[in-house]
């Protein structure tokens, strides 16, 4: 039987992970196609000619790009274990935080780990402000989605797993347990989920990947 759902992904890429997690939470069988981001396949470039990036979801041969948009598509196509609330305003709030993560928070976190000096300090300040806002948003909740993992939790998965690795490689600390107890508790709860753990890249492999990248950057200077 032909596999209906395929995911073009790169194993260490947190945006690709979002898509795989959502499919697993909904019990949707899929095939993943590994992409070498330094040598992208013709297929990927055909399916995502505008952005030329992973992830791309292929459903019945039709491609969808951009991880948050793929999550919306997955939510609308497979109704089991909803990842968005039913109420329009609560949906708007969830979408708001997903965008906040992509446009502000994750950028600041990422850049904090790859820059130096004053630039790094500025990014770290921004990152801490973003983490504080997320900390407030989590108050009284197990997950951003309430009692179960929702779209915002999926979008924030890089905070639960990738961030610790990046902090180690960069030699900095951002997710301080004293300052962000809700976020740290959320990380613990998030990582208890079977679906989350099934396709999470191994920490040791991520560490090696980012350390190699750091060395490559340092050697260019």
């Amino acid at each position, binding site marked *: 039987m032909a596999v209906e759902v395929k995911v073009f992904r790169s194993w260490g890429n947190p945006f690709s992970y979002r898509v795989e997690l959502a499919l697993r939470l909904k019990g949707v069988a899929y095939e993943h196609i590994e992409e070498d981001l330094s040598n992208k396949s013709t297929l990927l470039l055909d399916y995502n000619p505008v952005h030329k990036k992973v992830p791309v979801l292929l*459903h019945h041969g039709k491609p*969808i790009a951009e991880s948050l*948009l793929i999550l*919306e598509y997955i939510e609308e*196509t497979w109704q089991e274990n909803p990842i968005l609330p039913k109420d*329009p*305003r609560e949906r*708007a*709030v969830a979408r*708001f935080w997903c965008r906040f993560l992509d446009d502000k928070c994750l950028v600041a976190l990422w850049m904090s780990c790859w820059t130096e000096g004053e630039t790094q300090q500025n990014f770290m300040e921004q990152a801490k402000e973003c983490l504080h806002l997320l900390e407030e948003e989590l108050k009284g909740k197990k997950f951003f989605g309430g009692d179960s993992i929702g779209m915002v939790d999926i979008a924030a998965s890089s905070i639960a797993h990738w961030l610790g690795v990046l902090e180690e490689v960069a030699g900095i600390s951002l997710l301080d347990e004293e300052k962000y107890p809700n976020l740290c508790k959320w990380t613990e709860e998030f990582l208890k989920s079977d679906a989350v753990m099934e396709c999470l890249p191994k920490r040791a492999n991520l560490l090696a990947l980012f350390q190699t990248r750091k060395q490559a950057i340092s050697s260019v200077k």
Partner: protein
Amino acid sequence: MPLRVKAPRPLLPTEPISPPATKHRERSIWMAEGENKGLVLLDFWVSPFGQRCRIALAEKGVEYEYREENLRDKSPLLLKSNPVHKKIPVLIDHGRPVCESLNIVQYIDEKWPDRAPLLPADSYARAQARFWADLVDKKMYESGTKLWKLKGEAQEEAKKEFIEILKLLEGELGDKKYFGGDTFGLVDIALVPFTAWFYSYEACANLSAEKEAPKLVPWVKRCRERESVSKSLPDPLKVYEFVCFLKKVYGIE
């Protein structure tokens, strides 16, 4: 359904940047009311993001109160309603705010699903609509702003970038009536407000959007024939006046 909307008060370049102190006191009295009033849109007349919301509300025939914000002296209501970004537009629905323009448009579509659907029914088509609206969001404003903010080689680079985006959008529109096909929808709403800036881009950067993407011309005309669009979009000459005012503020010749 009659649409009762307070007409926006245009912020002309000659108006003082800081409003008189009394305006804050008036607003603080309104705040308690405003929080529980039906629908309130916090907006700024020239903002293409605000215009998206106005168009969507008009398409659905929904009544709301329009409130013009002074972006150099933001109201307590705005700062309270959008504490994260402190930006317009914000749609306050019975005291509960919704922020970010495309978010607001989708909210409006989901809240009033019984009329003028802004997204197609089919999930794949919806994904495509969101993709192109997202692209407009990511590229149009930043790229367009560079056209009047930059000069020389940097401006030439910005022009190339902008033309690429226009051609991409033109390619996606093709020979369709609207981006979604026969029905006016999310992508049209996301993009059409920027067309009021085409005159400014031509004047500042010598870039004719009409020449670079001719297929967009009939689409712009078709959109402007809709009352929701013609009543929401500002006069391109007023936009240009505003751009000139901003250039003075930023010290750009």
